[in-house]
C-alpha cells in the first residue's frame, strides 16, 4: 500500500505542490466548518469566491509572468488606477461599456510599456514594474484626491446581480438558508481561468511561456537559441497581465462601488503569495494556472477563518500567509534541488531512501500545518465559537455628521463620533465649554461634568500646540482592520470649525489628530454599549 502511494507520488511529483495546496485549502475550510456552525452555510463558501474574484483574476495574469521567470509588482497600482479612473469617467457621464473597454485598453498599454522596458531595454522586471506601480499610484492622485463614489446603472447591475447556483437553491431553502449565489466578477474570473488553462497548455504561446522560464535565465537562453520568439512572448505576457490587472481593478470597483488611489495596498503581495502557494515556481518554468485558484482559496479561507475566530486581529492573516508561503517555497526548493541534481552526488540506490524522506517531509509539513490550525482554532475559537456571519460582519454606520453639526450649533465645542470597533458601537459625544459632556449611542444617554479648565486646555492644545490637525485623513471602511474604531471629530473654537475623519490603528493619523483623540477619550463618560 505504502509503495503504491509512493509510486503514485513519484509519478506525479510535479503535482505535489498543487495537491498540497488543494488539500490544505479544503482541510482548512473543513476545520472551520467543524468548529463554526456559520461556516457550514453554503453562502460562506461561495463568498470565498465573491470576495476574492479580483485576486484570482490578477493571479492568473501573474502566474504567466512568474512562469516566464519575471515578476510584476505593478498590479496593485493598476488596480487602484482602474478604480479611480473608471469612477471619475462614470461621474463625468461616460458610457459604462466604453469605460470598461477603455480601462482594459489602459491596463494593456501600461503592461505593454513595462514589457518594452523589460524586453528592449533589459531593465530588471522588478524595477520596471515597480516604477509602473509608482506611476499608476501617483496618477490616481492626479485624477482625484478623494474616494469617488460609483453611481452607475450598468456598474450597479454588474456588481449586484446574484447568480444562483443551480441545484443548491432548493437545498438551501429546505434548510431555511437564503439561496446561495455568486456574482458576475466570479463568472468572469472562472471564464478567464478556463481560457488561461487552455492558453497555457494547448497553444504554442503557452509552451513558449514554459520554455522561457526557470533555471536562472539559462532556459531563456536555450529558448532563444532554439529560435523561439522570446521577446514577443515576454511582451505579450506583460500585456496580458496588464489586461488582468485592469479586469481585477474593474471587478474590485464593482465590489466596492467606488474608486480611490489608496485601494488595494499590498495587493501584489497577496497575488504573488497565492501564485506561489498554487505551486508555481518563483524562478519560473514550472507550475499550473489551475493551482493559482487553490492559492487564492487558501488566502481567502485564512481570512474567513480569522474573521470567524473573531478574537484574532486581521494582521494574523499576513503572518499565516507568510508562513504558508515559506513552507511552499521550502517544498519547492527541496523538489527543485532534487530535480536539478544538486544533491545528485548520492549513489543510485540511495535515491528511493531520499525520496521517502522527502515524502515524509512534505506529509509531515502538511500534517503540522493541519494540527497547528486545529489547535489554534480550537484554542482561540472556543471563546467565540458562537460566531455567526452576522455578528462578525459589523455593519458600520455612517458618521452622524448632521447631528454633530446641530450639536455644534447648540454650543458644543467638540463633537466626537466613534463607530465600529470590536463591539460595533455607534457613539456620539458632545463636549461643551462649561465642562458638560454628553454621550449617546442611539439607545442610552449619559452625561458627565468635568472641569471646564480641562476643556479649555484641550482646545488650546488642539488649536495652538498642534496647530489644528489637518483634514487629510482617508477613512475607508474597506480597511482590513476589523477591530478598529472609525472616528469623527468636529471642533468649533475661536471662530474656526474643523472636522476630521479617520480610523485608528491602520490609517496614518497625523500626530495632532492622535493627540486630540487620546486627550478627548478620558473626558468621555462610560456608555454601557450593548454587544
Amino acid at each position, binding site marked *: 500500500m505504502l509503495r503504491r502511494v509512493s509510486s503514485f507520488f513519484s509519478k506525479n511529483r510535479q503535482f505535489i505542490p498543487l495537491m498540497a495546496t488543494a488539500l490544505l485549502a479544503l482541510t482548512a475550510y473543513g476545520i472551520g466548518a467543524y468548529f463554526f456552525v456559520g461556516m457550514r452555510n453554503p453562502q460562506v463558501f461561495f463568498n470565498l469566491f465573491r470576495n476574492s474574484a479580483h485576486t484570482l483574476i490578477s493571479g492568473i495574469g501573474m502566474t504567466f509572468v512568474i512562469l516566464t521567470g519575471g515578476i510584476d509588482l505593478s498590479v496593485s497600482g493598476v488596480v487602484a488606477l482602474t478604480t479611480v479612473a473608471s469612477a471619475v469617467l462614470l461621474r463625468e457621464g461616460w458610457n459604462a461599456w466604453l469605460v470598461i473597454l477603455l480601462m482594459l485598453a489602459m491596463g494593456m498599454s501600461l503592461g505593454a510599456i513595462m514589457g518594452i522596458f523589460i524586453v528592449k531595454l533589459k531593465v530588471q522586471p522588478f*524595477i520596471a514594474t515597480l516604477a509602473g506601480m509608482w506611476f499608476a499610484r501617483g496618477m490616481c492622485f492626479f485624477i482625484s484626491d478623494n474616494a469617488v463614489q460609483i453611481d452607475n446603472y450598468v456598474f450597479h447591475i454588474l456588481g449586484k446581480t446574484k447568480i444562483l447556483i443551480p441545484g443548491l437553491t432548493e437545498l438551501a431553502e429546505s434548510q431555511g438558508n437564503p439561496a446561495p449565489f455568486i456574482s458576475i466578477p466570479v463568472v468572469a474570473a472562472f471564464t478567464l481561468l478556463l481560457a488561461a488553462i487552455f492558453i497555457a497548455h494547448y497553444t504554442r504561446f503557452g509552451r513558449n511561456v514554459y520554455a522561457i522560464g526557470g533555471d536562472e535565465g539559462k532556459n531563456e537562453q536555450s529558448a532563444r537559441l532554439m529560435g523561439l520568439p522570446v521577446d514577443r512572448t515576454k511582451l505579450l505576457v506583460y500585456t496580458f497581465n496588464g489586461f488582468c490587472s485592469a479586469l481585477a481593478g474593474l471587478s474590485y470597483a464593482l465590489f466596492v462601488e467606488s474608486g480611490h488611489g489608496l485601494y488595494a495596498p499590498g495587493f501584489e*503581495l497577496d497575488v504573488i503569495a497565492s501564485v506561489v502557494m498554487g505551486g508555481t515556481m518563483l524562478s519560473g518554468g514550472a507550475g499550473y494556472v489551475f493551482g493559482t485558484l487553490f492559492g487564492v482559496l487558501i488566502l481567502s479561507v485564512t481570512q474567513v477563518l480569522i474573521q470567524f475566530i473573531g478574537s484574532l486581529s486581521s494582521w494574523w492573516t*499576513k503572518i499565516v500567509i507568510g508562513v504558508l*508561503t515559506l513552507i511552499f517555497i521550502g517544498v519547492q526548493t527541496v523538489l527543485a534541488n532534487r530535480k536539478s541534481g544538486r544533491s545528485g552526488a548520492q549513489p543510485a540506490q540511495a535515491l528511493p531512501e531520499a525520496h521517502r524522506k522527502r515524502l515524509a517531509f512534505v506529509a509531515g509539513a502538511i500534517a503540522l500545518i493541519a494540527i497547528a490550525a486545529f489547535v489554534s482554532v480550537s484554542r482561540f475559537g472556543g471563546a467565540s465559537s458562537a460566531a455567526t456571519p452576522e455578528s462578525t460582519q459589523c455593519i458600520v454606520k455612517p458618521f452622524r455628521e448632521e447631528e454633530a453639526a446641530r450639536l455644534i450649533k447648540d454650543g458644543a465645542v467638540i463633537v466626537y463620533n466613534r463607530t465600529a470597533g470590536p463591539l460595533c458601537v455607534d457613539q456620539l459625544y458632545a463636549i461643551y465649554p462649561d465642562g458638560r459632556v454628553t454621550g449617546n449611542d442611539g439607545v442610552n444617554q449619559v452625561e458627565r461634568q468635568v472641569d471646564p479648565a480641562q476643556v479649555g486646555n484641550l482646545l488650546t492644545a488642539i488649536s495652538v500646540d498642534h496647530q489644528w490637525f489637518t483634514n487629510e485623513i482617508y477613512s475607508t471602511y474597506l480597511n482590513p482592520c476589523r477591530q478598529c474604531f472609525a472616528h469623527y471629530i468636529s471642533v468649533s473654537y475661536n471662530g474656526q470649525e474643523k472636522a476630521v475623519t479617520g480610523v485608528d490603528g491602520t490609517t496614518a493619523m497625523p500626530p495632532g489628530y492622535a493627540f486630540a483623540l487620546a486627550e478627548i477619550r478620558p473626558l468621555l463618560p462610560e456608555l454601557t454599549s450593548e454587544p
Partner: protein
Amino acid sequence: MKKTMKPSFTWRNITESRLFFPLVALSLILLFDFIFIPGFFTIENREGNLHGSLIDIFRNGSTVMLLAIGMTLVIATGGVDLSVGATMAIAASVAGILMNPSALRNEVFFVTDPTYTFQPLGVVIAAALFVAILCGLWNGVLVAYMRIQPMVATLILMISGRGIAQLITNGLRVQITYRPYAYIGQGWIVLPFSLYIVAFVFLVTWLMTRKTAIGMFIESVGINFRSSFFSGIDEKRIKLLVYTFCGFCAGIAGLVASSNIKTSDANNIGLTTELDAILAVVIGGTSMAGGRFSLLASMVGALVMQAITQSMYAIGVPAFALQAIKAVVVILVILLYSEQVRGFVRRISAPKKEV
C-alpha cells in the same frame, strides 16, 4: 574606486567612474532646484545649528542612506533584500513598545511626559537592534543555507514582517514622547544628529570592506559563488554576514525613522523604502547581478532619491502624486544607464581622447 584615484583625469576615466552618473543625476536635480525654487540653497544658522532645504535632503535621506549601505553589500553578492522596510517596522515597534507599553492595553494612549520611559534607552536600542539582527539572520539562513532565491526568501519576511510588527504593538500606533529617544532623529549638533549615525555606519562599513578582505570576498561571491567556493571562500558565511548586516542597518534606520516622527507605526514605517534603497543602489551603479560595488556611489544614489522627493515637495506636488514623478525619474535614470546611452557617451569621448 581605483580608477578615480589615478591621477589621470581624462574624460574617459571620469565617465567610466562609478560616481559619474549618480553625481550627474544629483547635479541635474540641484540645478533644477536652483532655477525653479528660490531659496532652495539658503542655509540658516539657528542657534549654531544649520537648517535649510539642502540640509533637509541629508536629514530625511538618512534612513534610505542607512538602508543603502546594507543593501549595497547584499546586492553585491548577487542577492536582494526586500524585507528591510518590514525589518524597520519591527525594530521601531520593539523600541516603541519598550518605551510606551500602553498599546498593549488596547488603547490609543498618549504619554505626554517627555521623561517617561518604561525601559532605559540603552535597553531599548539594544533590544530593537537585536531583533533587527535576528531578522537579517533569518534572511541569511534562508538564502545561504536553504538555497532559496534571495528575492523569494526575503519576500516572506516582507509579507509577514508587518504582521509581526503589528503583533508587537497590538496593531496600534505607539506614540513616543521620551525626549532622549527623539534626539536620534531630531537632534542637531550643527548638523542633524542622524547624519553622524549615517557617517559612522558608513565609515565602519567602508573600513570593513575596503581595508580588510571582506569586500573582495563579497565581490567574488557576487561574480561567481561557485568559483569563490572552490578558491576557499566560505560563500555561505559571507552571504549570512551581509544579510545580517543589512538587517542591522535596517534596524538603525527603523530607530531613526520612528524617532523622527515620534511614533512607531507598524503599518507605515519603512513602507516602500526597500524600493528606495534598491533604487539608490542601482542609481549608484552596482549591478543587480552582483559583483563590483561602491558604497559612496550608493550614498549619492540615496541622495538623488531624496533630492527628487524634496524638490517635488518644494514645488508643491502632493505627497501621493509624487510617486508618479518619482517613477518617471527612475525610468529616466534607468535609460541613462542603458547600454545605448553609455555607448553614446563613449562615442562622444572617443574623439576627444585622440586629440
